[in-house]
């Protein structure tokens, strides 16, 4: 692993000043994505997975802000860049795909106009060249008849087609990293598979790294290389997909896996994690998962576990950590 990671997030911390003091939305997030790698970020709603993507993009909604940590993109620190410089990073070096293709496109501009705008912002092409490239991109994402479709408006596309347009926009400047925030959630089941496979194919062809944010373990299982599991604004486990699914090491991941009804064998009762994830302004002391954890120890209530190697990945749980680690 001597290669420079495409994305290297180190101890990222995001805060929201709010009514009852400052809320820490993300704490101690550290992860890397290698070139060409797909990292799945999974977690339940409110776990902070989308916010991680936005923080990397520098698009946190004020008053939210990065309060600590570093974000390195391909060997360059980007969390300290000015707004102006960040504009040159977004789109050019990091592409983004958001959840709802219905609302991601400006309804008043044709898709071609939006594509050409993005292309010309980042690449030194003239109008005709940019237009040609826009048509090529549409063809690439599998939109039939791109020569005519390029002049259509977003509302003339179906949901799946629109998400393809969004992917074309994200790929317009051939970025090396794509942050895909729930790219399939708003789509019908039979369309979801098309989009994930498209995304996977394109990234593989271009060697693009992907941060795939989703709540759907199945999508992760079928798409990602590695997976990061988040809970209450913290990373609880990160590791190769197959290992995490097959041998989850954090109790939360274990519970999560157990609670997914599978297509395989039928069980009379699903494994369940009682309670609900805490709100960000009421995260318990120590390990955030401790009130729901079936294996909770006294130490979990006072002390926060950090990510620590465990199996082929890392997990943040004292169960998997040698005792002296925490003393350090």
């Amino acid at each position: 692993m001597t290669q420079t990671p495409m994305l290297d997030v180190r101890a990222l911390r995001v805060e929201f000043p709010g009514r009852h003091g400052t809320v820490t939305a993300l704490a101690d997030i550290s992860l890397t994505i290698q070139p060409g790698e797909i990292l799945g970020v999974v977690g339940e709603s409110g776990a902070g997975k989308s916010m991680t993507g936005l923080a990397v993009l520098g698009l946190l909604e004020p008053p939210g802000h990065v309060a600590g940590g570093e974000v390195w993109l391909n060997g360059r620190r980007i969390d300290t860049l000015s707004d102006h410089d960040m504009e040159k990073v977004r789109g050019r070096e990091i592409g983004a795909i958001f959840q709802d293709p219905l609302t991601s496109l400006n309804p008043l501009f044709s898709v071609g106009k939006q594509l050409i705008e993005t292309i010309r912002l980042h690449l030194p092409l003239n109008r005709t060249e940019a237009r040609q490239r826009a048509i090529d991109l549409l063809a690439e994402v599998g939109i039939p008849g791109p020569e005519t479709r390029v002049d259509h408006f977003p509302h003339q596309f179906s949901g799946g087609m629109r998400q393809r347009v969004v992917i074309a926009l994200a790929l317009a400047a051939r970025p090396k990293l794509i942050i895909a925030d729930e790219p399939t959630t708003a789509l019908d089941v039979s369309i979801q598979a098309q989009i994930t496979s498209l995304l996977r194919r394109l990234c593989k062809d271009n060697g693009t790294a992907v941060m795939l944010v989703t709540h759907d373990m199945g999508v992760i299982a079928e798409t990602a290389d590695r997976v990061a599991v988040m809970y209450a604004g913290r990373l609880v486990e990160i590791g190769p997909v197959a290992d995490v699914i097959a041998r989850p090491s954090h109790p939360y991941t274990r519970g999560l896996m157990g609670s997914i009804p599978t297509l395989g064998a039928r069980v009379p009762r699903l494994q369940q994690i009682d309670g609900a994830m805490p709100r960000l302004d009421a995260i318990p002391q120590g390990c955030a998962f401790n009130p729901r954890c079936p294996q909770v120890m006294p130490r979990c209530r006072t002390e926060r576990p950090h990510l620590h190697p465990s199996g082929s990945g890392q997990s943040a749980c004292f169960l998997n950590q040698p005792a002296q680690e925490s003393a350090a």
Partner: protein
Amino acid sequence: MIVFLIKRLANAAFVMLVVALMAFMIFRFVGDPVQLMVNEQTTQAERDELRERLGLNQSMPMQYLHFVANAVQGDFGISYRNQQEVMSLIAERFPATIELVLMATIISLVVGVPLGVITAIHRGKWYSEGLQFLSIIGVSLPSFVIGIMLILVFSVMFNILPAFGRGDVVSIGWWTTGLLTASGRAALILPSIALSFYQITLVMRLVRAEMLEVLRSDFIKFARARGVPAWRVHYSHALRNCLMPVVTMTAMNIGSLIAFALITETVFQWPGMGLLFIQAVTFVDIPVMAAYLCIVSFIFVALNTLVDITYALIDPRLRNAKA
């Protein structure tokens, strides 16, 4: 599209018929026109004869039909007070009011849109909060108070702008304009500012609300994620999405401005339709009242219809939905 047109026009026509009915009712039931027209020496026989000639003996629906038929031809009868055809009376005042209203509309857009954008983009900054506060004061001040204040400051105190009237006007065909003379332009300033005051704050607040709404939308977030620079996000993507409702509201509000102008016209003695109307109200000059009601409503309805239709024509979403 044709269906849409027909429906919209039918709706407008229906509304106008009802407005005409109201005007007719006013005409018919408020104050006996005969009583208002004759002097005290008139004998009963003469009164009856007059009643006959005015068609007041016909059945109510017949009278209404007559009224509508005449109104459609622009015949609203003769002003009791001015003894002139109401329509030509109003036609004379029409340019003055329209110039005032258009000027106020232009001012409201030129001032209101940038203010709205500034307060939306710099939400939370002290100056945009301050502008917000001022805008509340703007909607709270009655327009007659604004007019009085403007006169006091600019006409009486500094003596730099005329306090009343329309200055010299130039006739172009039947239209008269004050824009071509220095005194006409000077006279237009204070009334149009007074009239635009409320509208400015409306535009500003609408632009602000729309901008905030649009800036929160996914496509703006996505545009920024695509690396579109902030100014371009604000002025090309966001503002363009806001302009539609702003232009719509502005166009539709021209109708209310025409009505609202009557206060400004009263304060500034502006020789427009509103002043005519207010004088007609105090004199119970019913033909003028009825005509004014019909005409202002007509402008109002016509503008709304026009805006709706234009909207359907230019918005790509609506254009195709209607196909």
